[in-house]
């Protein structure tokens, strides 16, 4: 990749992918045998995990499971903005 997308763009991609994952999850709860939907879920779920890992590396973790990818000496969870704050959304 020539240039890393900025924080806002990257967060927006994570929001869109995550929405697809959540909406498909609800659909699968009432249609657990829909193989096409399971494949769709798997595709977007792995995209989401990758995007969360890349975000943590660049801008700090959004989830506790990606906190290890943020190469900071300080515990960045307390420093990065919360989503209702300026710069967090």
């Amino acid at each position, binding site marked *: 990749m020539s240039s890393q997308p900025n924080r806002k763009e990257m*967060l*927006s991609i*994570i*929001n869109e992918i*995550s*929405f697809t994952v*959540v*909406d498909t*999850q*609800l*659909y699968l*709860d*009432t*249609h*657990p045998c829909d193989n096409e939907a399971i494949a769709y879920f798997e595709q977007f779920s792995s995209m989401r995990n990758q995007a969360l890992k890349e975000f943590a590396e660049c801008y700090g*973790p*959004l*989830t*506790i*499971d990606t906190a290890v990818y943020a190469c900071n000496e300080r515990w960045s*969870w307390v420093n*990065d903005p*919360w*989503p*209702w704050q300026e710069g*967090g*959304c």
Partner: protein
Amino acid sequence: MWNYEKRLQYPVKISQPNAALAKIIITQFGGPDGELAASMRYLAQRYTMPYKEVTALLTDIGTEELAHMEMICAIVHQLTRGLSAEELEKAGFADYYVDHTAALWPAAASGAAWTAAYIQSKGDPITDLHEDLAAEQKARTTYDNILRLVKDPEVCDPIRFLRQREIVHYQRFGESLRIIQDNLDANNFYAFNPAFDK
């Protein structure tokens, strides 16, 4: 068990404070058809739900409602952020301000405190699903009412997202009711309570 994700389900970025709007929108935090009530309702009902698809759905929608509560709180917070006591008073926010300053506290637009009396957890799958279907429609009407009063596009946008989710949840709960009835005697759905009778 829950994990926190440090993002909103849908972004909330409001540049223009408006405490009069906050006073209305807070009802979807702590009002009778708000997101806190929705989450508590579904997360309470799931323990006695005997059908695995529906137990999963109550858990997952109950979880999504927490994310919606967070969005509503972010909207109210951004609409009241940085305002003086005089500005809050002018916007009709003095009654709330005197007890809670600019903090988030679950109340209806009328000022009434959030109460568990807003929800039901009946322990009968058919009854609980009807409660849930009604709850989604009541929340959808509340969002429609809010949208008639809101002109700021930065506020309308996340409210429209939340309204849309009520319709999706209603659809999924409708499918759940069908799953429940498919497991029961079609000649008499009420012959016994599958969550209680052996």
